[in-house]
């Protein structure tokens, strides 16, 4: 310790722990070359319209026409046996189709997850995936109920969280957050479907 400096050594500027730094948000990156995406592209032609990786999660945008093929291939050939989640997102103003329908799959062997995304316009029917994953049944019913997206080939496409006779789809962006007066379907003569209680003469109360 001969060459000990005379002044008390400055504490080496210890790097601040990450929780005291300004957080660095993740950045999206192109993921077309990602192995999980390449597998799908190799199995189903024209399946990958776009692929993004963000915060370690890979999203593949699939054309609606190829959705059934891609899901089938993912389940049977790529071992995505577990459909974790199925939901939709409303982008009311977007030109290239109003809704995103999002599928979030898991494979147990490799512990990997993958997100499929389909862009569709309002009123376009998507093929149901209930024949591929049984669990999709209630999830698709919920998406139908909340967004009004139709799934062709679904065994029982009914409303699930709201009631029969309810008008509108609550999670659409144009549905008012305070709700609409829908009446109650059990007394159709007093509360007609889609409207509030009627006064005599048909005027809303």
């Amino acid at each position: 310790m001969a060459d000990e400096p005379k002044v008390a050594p400055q504490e080496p500027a210890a790097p601040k722990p990450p929780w005291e730094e300004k957080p660095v948000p993740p950045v999206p990156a192109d993921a077309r070359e990602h192995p999980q995406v390449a597998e799908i592209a190799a199995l189903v032609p024209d399946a990958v319209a776009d692929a993004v990786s963000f915060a370690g999660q890979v999203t593949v945008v699939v054309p609606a026409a190829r959705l059934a093929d891609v899901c089938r291939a993912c389940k049977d050939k790529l071992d995505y046996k577990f459909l974790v989640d199925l939901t939709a997102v409303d982008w009311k103003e977007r030109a290239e189709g109003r809704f995103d329908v999002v599928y979030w799959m898991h494979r147990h062997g490799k512990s990997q997850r993958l997100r499929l995304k389909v862009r569709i316009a309002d009123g376009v029917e998507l093929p149901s995936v209930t024949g591929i994953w049984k669990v999709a049944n209630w999830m698709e019913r919920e998406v139908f109920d909340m967004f009004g997206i139709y799934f062709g080939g679904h065994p029982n496409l009914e409303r699930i969280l709201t009631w029969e006779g309810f008008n509108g789809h609550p999670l659409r962006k144009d549905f008012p957050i305070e709700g609409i007066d829908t009446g109650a379907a059990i007394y159709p003569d007093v509360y007609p479907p889609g409207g509030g209680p009627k006064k005599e003469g048909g005027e809303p109360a």
Partner: protein
Amino acid sequence: MSPEVVRPFPDSEEMEISFGPQHPATHGVLRVMVKLDGEKIIEAKPIIGYLHRGTEKIFERETYNGAIPHTDRLDYTAAATNNQGLVGAVERLMGITVPPRAAYIRMMLAELQRIASHIIWLGTHALDIGAQTPFFYTFQEREKILDLYEEYCGARLTLNCMRVGGQPFDLPAGWTDRCREFIDQFPARVAEWEGLLTNNRIWKQRTIGVGVISAADAIEWGLTGPPLRGSGVRWDIRKVFPYDHYDEVEFEVPTGAHGDTYDRYLVRMEEMRQSVRIVRQCLDRIPDGPVLAKVPKVIKPPKGEIYFSVEGPKGELGYYIVSNGEATPHRLHVRPACFINLQALPEMVRGYLVADLIAVIGTLDIVLGEIDR
């Protein structure tokens, strides 16, 4: 693999009864339309939505921290794990690292919550099947956990006990001692309850071979949590995608073998013991330091989407956030464990007796607040 529906009186009439929504054994406002032949279930159709509050719509007008109290009301028996899922998702979306002390506090709160939730399950499930005694003993223990919560955050049920970036408060003085006191005596209580039930002949008759679901079917139906583990699939988000500091603590993931109600019972009993083990390790290791990271005053995640899930007491509880760079989420979707577990109910009760329907509803451990959102 339900038993074949054999109609004992082929010329008898089928009967359809509406079970619930105001039936105490349906654990809330679940309604099941059951088609019966005598006492055998031919078809069961759950009807839900009686508790729908539009939570996902409400999320869209709330700030991220403002959404946390709404998550308390999803699965209202497990508010801490609901909070943990939401704040975890936002933190990953913003790239925030949580201080270790906060992460350990979160793990303790979450594991205590798992115990509290399993306690409710055990008490009510046993009560439904006809064992009244455990109900009183179990709720006594739950009260102690709620006292610990009350001391930490002031609330007992709707905790609102986590924030984006860490914890709102540090642990109060003496909390760790009282927590240790609780977990030291708790395993003996679990043993006591098991003494009441595990080898009880009536309990075994009511649960063994009831509501059987195979491992392959369980994955196909998307089951998670104890119903999946009861079928023998070793699957726990805490192990598969560890969050907070679950990769630093040791615990086992118990599994069953037969996928019946009895195995799911054993799995949950063992999970309570494992949770005690985790809480004890957290108490030993919890470091000093801040409990809240440096986060902006207004939480504005960047444009992007994220799915983050935690292992709730009922199964995988996920949050899918789509942000367009504003202070409120564009879409915040909850992947509810109970909703998806309940979907398998018709499969699990077909061919069994009406009384078994009660047992299966109990063993799925559903909470309608999370199903209907």
